[in-house]
């Protein structure tokens, strides 16, 4: 279908965009890459009176390294991140996860900020940002604030953004050299929405012990889910296959999946177990392989 008519603005700066959002409040939606919003407009599920198209806010498109963080502008295209040598070197799990997003023509338009704000529990970028303990910088009429993933993701398709705020920057830690990582996703066909996805990170310490583990799951809760019990189980330990198996069981226990057209809750919980185990194994193999 075709969208309902809307008033259309193309601010060139962040303050201009915020000014428009302040003026129109709940009636306005921000248009970034549009790969989720435009389908919703086409279906007329969303009928905003005003669209604030931020694609002309060029200052929001960048990838930089600052100390031990990658700093990414909210309007940076998914494709730019996927092929960025800096991302591939310093945070390869992000590039890997992005390769699962739809198909190339979606990633050439879709943005990191758009994916985070849309907060689809099956989306890839939110899961990786949760596992990496990234932070979202949000700008509004009263200034900027920095939100952690657990503060940012509220529930299904809902972030902590106020109607007059926009996500301007994402800050994610670079991976230390001795880190095992893996991103895995199960979907019916390549490019479909993921049914369950897992981002696993093993930060290795001295004497072959895992200093800290980080596990985030998508598609099994209203927001990206950190599997804290499984992380605690792995942290400070020498990784073994038995430990990995048990971590998968604990991760699955933490899930609160729902049944829908694509998969039953029971099936999702089983996928959470199996894919946690497989991704931990892959992350562990990367360390053993000296990568």
């Amino acid at each position, binding site marked *: *279908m*075709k*969208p*309902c*008519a*809307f*008033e*259309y603005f193309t601010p060139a700066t962040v303050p201009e965009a915020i000014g428009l959002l302040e003026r129109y409040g709940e009636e306005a939606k921000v248009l970034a890459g*549009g*790969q989720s919003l*435009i*389908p919703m*407009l*086409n*279906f007329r599920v969303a009928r905003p009176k005003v*669209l604030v*198209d931020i*694609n002309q806010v060029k200052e929001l498109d960048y990838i930089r390294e600052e100390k031990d963080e990658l700093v990414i502008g909210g309007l940076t295209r998914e*494709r730019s991140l996927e092929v960025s040598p800096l991302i591939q070197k310093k945070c390869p799990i992000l590039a890997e996860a992005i390769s699962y997003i*739809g*198909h*190339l*023509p*979606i990633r*050439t*338009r879709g943005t990191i900020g758009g994916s985070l704000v849309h907060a689809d529990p099956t989306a890839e970028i939110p899961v990786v940002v949760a596992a990496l303990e990234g932070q979202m910088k949000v700008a509004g009429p009263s200034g900027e604030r920095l939100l952690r993933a657990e503060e940012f993701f509220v529930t299904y398709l809902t972030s902590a953004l106020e109607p007059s705020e926009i996500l301007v920057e994402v800050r994610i830690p670079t991976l230390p050299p001795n880190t095992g990582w893996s991103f895995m996703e199960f979907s019916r*066909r*390549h*490019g479909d929405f993921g049914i369950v996805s897992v981002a696993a990170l093993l930060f290795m310490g001295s004497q072959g012990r895992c200093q800290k583990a980080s596990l985030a799951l998508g598609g099994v809760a209203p927001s990206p889910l950190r599997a804290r019990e499984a992380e605690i189980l792995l942290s400070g330990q020498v990784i073994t296959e038995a430990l990995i198996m048990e971590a998968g069981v604990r991760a699955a226990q933490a899930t609160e999946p729902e049944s829908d057209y694509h998969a039953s809750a029971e099936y999702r919980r089983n996928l959470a177990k199996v894919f946690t185990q497989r991704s931990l194994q892959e992350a562990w193999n990367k360390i053993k392989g000296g990568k």
Partner: protein
Amino acid sequence: MADRRRIRVKVNGREVQGEVEPRKHLVDFLREDLELTGTHVGCEHGICGSCTVLLNGEPVRSCLMFAIQADGAEIMTVEGVAQGGKLHPLQEAFQEHHGLQCGFCTPGQLMTAYHFLKENPNPTEEEVRLAMSGVLCRCTGYKQVIDSVMAAAAKMRGK
């Protein structure tokens, strides 16, 4: 009275202007205003891939952006693939290997493959399968599409 805005785009090398409502999809501007009906509208939500065109050299779903957002951009549609009345080797390969039957998805297949082969002139079949997976086809069962793209790659490398 509907809000209409003037836009300028370069389509298949030709400068064109138009007046569009902000809500008009790029694909509808191409088809209705420019009468370039080679690009097909399938699902209108980004799944089927039939409406894929190149925007400044990169593939996009033209049902998932507004014409007004393409103001100032260069667009290539399926009408720009053949040159001087002669089919592109990619089109020849689709013909020779039965890469189409009803033809509905073909503009999307061709634009996707055109961009892919530019970036990957010597692909493996696995890479072709991955690249072409974003365009749905209800006739061919995909086998002939993959064969066509592999054959086109060989052709374009000079066999």
